[in-house]
């Protein structure tokens, strides 16, 4: 097994990250942060890329908008892909554009057949623009919208089948969404089509600060929760080892602290790999 568990790259961790020689380590960056003409940030990514595999995680394609992906944004992403040669390119099953405004969040929509046609078309346009398949991530949901014609799993499975994209399973988002809309998280985890799963995300969540609310928020500001680790083991036991990322975007601890969580995922992946490998005598 080559790639095991990775970390979301933070510029302040550059020295530790580049020097780290942990087996199977890789890094993921938010693609939009590196869509710049030049300078130290792009140089740091270039230096990191010379030492570790990199995955580009988009937060701005808005593939569930009822419009085609922004041509200029897609062109910038394609340029970054050519520069970095990432191990994966991903973004979210969500929309973000409204009346010229860009929402830096992943907005929900009714999962209708018509919406599926649109997302299949948009993912196709992205993949044509990049010249490679992308991975699509399940977002955190905060409300069960009326008007769904299919479950999220059905929608993502159809999307993968029809567009040829892979899936990025965010186990924390599965847990948060299931808790927020009142469905069974383990059943959701069991529903992802194993062949399509190309990457896994693990992150922390926090309770909604509004005391009248019992929602969970996908805050990426805490360690991965025990329930999420349990769901992760369940997923890996079924689909086998897949590159797994520890995400942390707020209250960022020292590199070594993040590596402890990363090593925990690494150990689970190595065990799963051993369990699957044929025994040689």
């Amino acid at each position, binding site marked *: 097994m080559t790639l095991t568990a990775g970390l979301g790259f933070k510029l302040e961790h550059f020295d530790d990250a580049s020097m780290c020689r942990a087996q199977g380590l890789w890094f993921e960056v938010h693609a939009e942060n590196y869509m*710049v003409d030049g300078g130290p*940030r*792009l140089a740091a990514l270039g230096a990191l890329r010379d030492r570790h595999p990199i995955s580009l995680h988009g937060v701005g394609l808005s593939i569930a908008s009822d419009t085609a992906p922004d041509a200029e944004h897609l062109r910038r992403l394609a340029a970054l892909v050519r520069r970095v040669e990432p191990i994966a390119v991903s973004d979210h099953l969500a929309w973000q554009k*409204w009346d*010229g405004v860009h929402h830096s*969040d992943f907005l929900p929509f009714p999962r*209708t057949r*018509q919406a599926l046609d649109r997302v299949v078309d948009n993912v196709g346009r992205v993949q044509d623009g990049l010249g490679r398949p992308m991975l699509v991530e399940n977002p955190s949901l905060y409300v069960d919208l009326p008007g769904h014609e299919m479950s999220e799993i059905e929608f993502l499975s159809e999307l993968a089948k029809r567009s040829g994209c892979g899936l990025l399973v965010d186990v924390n988002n599965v847990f948060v969404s299931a808790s927020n809309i009142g469905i069974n998280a383990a059943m959701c985890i069991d529903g992802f089509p194993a062949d399509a799963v190309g990457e896994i995300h693990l992150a922390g969540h926090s309770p909604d600060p509004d005391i009248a*609310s019992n929602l969970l928020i996908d805050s990426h500001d805490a360690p991965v929760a025990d329930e999420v680790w349990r769901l992760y083991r369940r997923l890996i036991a079924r689909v086998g080892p897949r590159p797994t990322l520890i995400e942390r975007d707020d209250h960022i601890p020292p590199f070594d602290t993040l590596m402890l969580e990363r090593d925990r995922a690494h150990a689970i992946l190595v065990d799963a790999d051993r369990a699957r490998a044929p025994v040689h005598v």
Partner: protein
Amino acid sequence: MSDATHPQPVNQSELARFQQAFGAALAGQGATPVAGGSALARALAIHRNTSAKAAQDALAANYPVVRALFGDDAFSACAGAFVSAEPPREPRLNAYGAGFPAFLQDYAPAAELSYVPDVAALERLHVEALFAADATSLDGLALGAALDPEAVLRLHPATRFTAFPSPAVGIWLAHRDGDEAALGEVVWRPEAVLVTRPGLDVRVERINAPAVAFLSACASGQTLGVAATAAAEAGGDLPTMFAMLITAGAFA
């Protein structure tokens, strides 16, 4: 009779109609997009907060000294007002906030702090320099003594300069260095700034009027001879000024 100012698209899809209504509800316009009561209202609030927080965090990252001048609470209030007035138009938040210096000009709570918009303008130049294209800075030694007065010096892609009516440069430098003594010694006067990026580090320094005259001439494509005359007329000492600009990596 049709409404010419608000035409209804005839073929608008269900998805587009939903997103139009959801976006309007996020922006606080119109009724909630779908039945959903308090659960939907809370979800909208969470999405609104997440989106606004990302934009406000980006603004705070790009304007650290303005934030320090205001203090965290006052900056948060100001950033919230700016994000409502000029929300991000694209997903690259590291470039967000180009309109913030102009917004501050009319921001009533800071009306007495007339230097704050200038400090913000300086911080914007810093962001532009940080993300500008790479280029090798012009080497003074390679240039040698044989400076051709007909030559045109090209500014490095990261080079920015401007003159302020306030001592914005001294205030910014003192804050960056955490130098309270320097902050106490700032005197009220117009100042000009040069922002450059020789190698990968952004440099910010105070420059004088002749240097501004020289750089302005270079930026508008004038020859070295014309630029030198402009600087000399502003009372500049050419060799010293030129050495400073070369050391700063102002040219490519």
